[in-house]
């Protein structure tokens, strides 16, 4: 019963998505094209290269699964948008926890996206010449655990970024765009860290961004070391969540909303 209200919030978000964003199909088309182009590039540059720790097939599966779970691997609530619109005020008046409200809304969007984009993309994978299956059953189990931890790290980072927007009164759109671009690059969601220059890839692997995407994807294709990857994700969750709570605690009174 306690979860019922969050379930309702989630479903409202899922069903309102078409009305709020009628151009969502264009965005899905763009993402589909991006996957196809990336797959072609990997086939072009990896076909004769034996110097990397991933095979071509593993990289192709990695790329496809990264797009199938892109929403979970680059977690974003609508918190920044609500600052902009001013609707954050209404959210704060509702008898629901703020973090949990936004999390429920985010999950509602996932339902919609999963049905209209992720699942069809997964079904199309044979047409793209990609084997979407995990390395083995154990790898899939580890992937699920790691994915949940990736969502945890991503959500904590999202709340931290948004708290920083409030504390330093930063321009929303500039920060939002830069955040998307930088996280996509640093998390290994678009380009596996193993394909970057070794020193760069090794350094990025320690950052929390890698715990958002690279860790679960490596486990899925069976190229990652489970204990160190999951251990690092747990470590970042333990560090980031208290930080997110503390930043929100000190920034609540400073919040300015643009719309309203």
């Amino acid at each position, binding site marked *: 019963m306690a979860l019922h209200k969050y379930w309702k919030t989630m479903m409202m978000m899922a069903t309102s998505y078409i009305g709020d964003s009628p151009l969502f199909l264009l965005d899905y088309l763009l993402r589909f*094209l991006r996957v196809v182009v990336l797959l072609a590039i990997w086939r072009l540059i990896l076909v004769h290269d034996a110097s990397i720790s991933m095979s071509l097939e593993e990289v192709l599966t990695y790329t496809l699964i990264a797009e199938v779970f892109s929403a979970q691997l680059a977690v974003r609530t609508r918190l920044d948008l609500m600052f902009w619109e001013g609707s954050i005020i209404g959210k704060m008046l509702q008898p629901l926890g703020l973090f949990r409200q936004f999390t429920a809304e985010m999950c509602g969007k996932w339902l919609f996206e999963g049905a209209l984009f992720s699942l069809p993309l997964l079904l199309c994978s044979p047409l793209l010449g990609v084997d979407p299956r995990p390395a083995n059953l154990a790898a899939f189990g580890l992937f699920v655990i790691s994915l949940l931890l990736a969502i945890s790290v991503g959500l904590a980072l999202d709340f931290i970024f948004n708290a920083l927007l409030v504390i330093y009164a930063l321009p929303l759109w500039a920060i939002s765009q830069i955040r998307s671009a930088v996280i996509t*690059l640093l998390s290994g969601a678009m380009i596996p860290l193993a394909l970057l220059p070794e020193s760069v890839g090794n350094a990025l692997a320690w950052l929390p961004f890698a715990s958002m995407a690279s860790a679960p994807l490596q486990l899925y294709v069976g190229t990652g070391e489970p204990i160190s990857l999951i251990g690092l994700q747990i470590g970042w969750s333990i560090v980031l969540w208290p930080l997110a709570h503390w930043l929100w605690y000190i920034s609540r009174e400073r919040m300015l909303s643009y719309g309203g």
Partner: protein
Amino acid sequence: MEANRTSKPTLRRVLQLWGLYARMDFLMIISDLRLGLIFYFCDAILNIALVTGMLLLAERFVNIGMWSYGQIVFMMGYATTANGIVNLFGSYNVGFISRRIGRGQFDHSLVQPLPIWLVLLSEGFMPFSSSAIFIPGIALLIWGLSQMTMTITFGWVVLLLVNLMASAAITLAFSFLWGSLAFWAPRSAEEVSTSAMNFLTQLKVFPLDGLGPILLTSLMTVIPVGFVAWFPSRALLGLEESSLGLWVTPLVAIVLSALAGFVFIKGMQHYGRTGSQHYRGFGHRG
């Protein structure tokens, strides 16, 4: 007002307006220096981040298909510089024209005592802000060229500039082509230019050599992302078999601009009959 709108604009007037908007751009940055610098560096970081992935791949693999390291750096520089030109002329939502139309802000341009094409050519001019994209773009172009043993002639530099302008024109024309939809559907198409620009921004950094013929044709026609950086870079670096390739991008720019202009004028004619929902009693977002 009508007399002014129909009077012949001179080059001097265009330069005057660019000077005016350049001054406003500079004043905007220094009026709140902290905010101005945040925007400036955000723009620079965003555009560098877009090409960094491909640069790192080139660094690791030395060659990407037929592209050498220096050629990939050149292509990233070309993509960034072309985007700088788009930002130079297309800021203040001129490049995202569907927002202006959908929000009713296009009326602000229509009441200016200038021809509408001159308003659109001058209002988005932001030379200081867009330098955050230009400077890294030009640096990448020079860095890429320094990695190659190519003879740079005056004629080649002219062709580079022509192709860069053409790529920027293709980007803006594509945005206007889609953005014109907002004349007919202001609410639902308000952000259509954003989606159109995202197509080009996200896919422009990839060399498209490995794509199949159907997809490649689509990315050169329906979504002309191939002309934003890949094809003109190939032609300029001599990777195209025919030297005629150097003129393909400018030709496509002319055709696409004419098409975008035609659709935009049709949209304006429709707008002239219906006006903006923004000023109705129930409001634009109602």
